[in-house]
């Protein structure tokens, strides 16, 4: 079991960090699109890069969707630490255990369940961009349920680890308890 959890954590970190680098791609696409339009306009012929323009928010979406499990593992999602900061590591682990079971896991499951049909429909129709020269829409829609699936897995790992700490089976580990902002 611990090996499986380690594998989930490692995958979240890898995928999340990979997604983070897409941010540079966003900057590249945006700079090209903006300069193309503005500098082109100076010469009376603004250039329009529809695909690159759409790529910007494809990358934006991919970044936050696939960085979410990593952010969860690293405790980067904000919390209110008024109560938390007064508790010991085991108290904090109880919060993460109960919060995981009652709040995070049901939501992640729901998100997979509710976005799956939309993704399948989009895939079946090979949905494209409404703009000429735009990108195919279905890969983006297909990515959503997968991203929430990964979030569910990371949530499972985080919650189980918190459970072990809460029940006194394991020592508190900073990464699991999360850092209060």
């Amino acid at each position, binding site marked *: 079991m611990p090996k499986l959890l380690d594998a989930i954590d490692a995958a979240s970190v890898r995928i999340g960090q990979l997604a983070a680098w897409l941010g540079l791609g966003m900057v590249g696409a945006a700079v090209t699109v903006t300069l193309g339009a503005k500098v082109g306009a100076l010469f009376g012929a603004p250039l329009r890069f529809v695909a690159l323009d759409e790529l910007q928010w494809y990358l934006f979406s991919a970044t936050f969707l696939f960085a979410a499990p990593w952010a969860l593992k690293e405790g980067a999602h*904000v919390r209110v630490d008024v109560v938390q900061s007064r508790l010991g590591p085991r108290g904090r682990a109880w919060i993460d255990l109960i919060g995981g079971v009652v709040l995070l896991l049901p939501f992640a499951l729901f998100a997979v369940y509710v976005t799956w049909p939309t993704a399948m429909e989009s895939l079946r129709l090979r949905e494209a961009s409404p703009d000429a020269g735009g990108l195919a829409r279905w890969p983006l829609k297909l990515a959503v349920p997968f991203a929430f699936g990964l979030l569910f897995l990371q949530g499972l790992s985080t919650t189980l680890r918190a459970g072990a700490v809460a029940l006194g089976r394991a020592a508190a580990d900073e990464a699991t308890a999360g850092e209060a902002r």
Partner: protein
Amino acid sequence: MDHALGVAMFAVTLLLIFVGYPVAFTLAGSAMLFSAVGMAAGYFDLDFLSIFPERLFGIMGNSILLAVPYFVLMGTVLQRSGLAEDLLHTIGLLFGKRRGGIALAVVLVGALLAAATGVVGASVVSMGMISLPVMLRHGYSPTLATGTICASGTLGQIIPPSIVLIVLADQLGTSPGALFRGALIPGFALAGLYAAYVAFVAWRNPAAAPALPDEDLEVRGAALLKRVAFVLLPPLALILLVLGSIFAGWATPTEAGALGAFGAMILAALRRRLSFDALRGSVFETAKLTTMVVFLLVGSTAFTLVFTGLDGDLWIQGALTSLPGGRVGLLVITNLVVFGLGFFIDFFEIAFIVLPLVLPAAQELGITGEALVWFGVMLGLNLQTSFLTPPFGFALFYLRSVTPPEVPTSTIYRGVVPFIAIQAVALALVIAFPELVTALV
């Protein structure tokens, strides 16, 4: 007329948030809990949740939110490459000969740099680490030093192009450019008042803010000029270009943000400070912060869908529009609630939770168009004050974490009091004279 479940959802969610599970998932999870309860009680129709995917795609394709990672990246690159630190150091050298010079430099850099990030924590911590030791070593009073750093670190909330203003614009449904223009006068007036206060202290009480001795001004004359040209002017020009292109209507905030992030990387690379570590650190921090912000919005979207399904929105709107005093009553209550919440939760949670609830009531009471921009700037100012106010203000905790132990927490508390007074005056002026905001909109 049965709002009981909606009221219960609001109360339980607020309580759950304070327990300390990540806010984004608390909001989303509470939506799950209460849709189940609502369905069991026969009050809730699952159709309300079936538009969640559509809302999610709306967030993914939101061109205003796209500006958030760009401005964060611009700020983190300037910070991680050390350009921000150099900037503070150079301005300190420039003003060092005058009494209160370093404190003035802190106010200036706070206004300029925080503007590029708008993240209170990042600017308070980095300015605290860089300038607090220098000020203490040279005999600045710890009260003045800590107060100046805390207050200047929060300036970036309100001075454009802060991501706070971008998110506010998105939530209010106005253009970020309009909010930037609206915040310009109040933001710079605040910076000016801070500077005036520092100058006043240095004049009345020279011992509290001494000038640097000559031997500490290691760079002078031509060398200093060169320093100004290479260290001070480039980032300054970049920030002004980004702001200017937005105000001139030449670029949208999203476009200007992307160019700004690119420009920051070029500047760092030209000074050979863009190491792989610095770049990786900036990229990772940007991704985590963006994810945090967007997921808060995802969570609050789920929350709002269910809350609306349980008629909670009607309850809130009814309560807010029937307040005694009408518009004034709404303004008073909203300001008090936002100020109170600002002690415990950060800006983004407040924007995503409170604004959707308050907005319909505000619009019904005639706060639309330009007045909406004014409303946003007022809330921004209010929150900024809240972040400064002891004992819970965010900025205070951040500074505490980088302050040497011999400076007691009570010193930081006493230090921010004059700045809170300045804030209160500015907030009162903006409420009394909306023209301060709307003049440039």
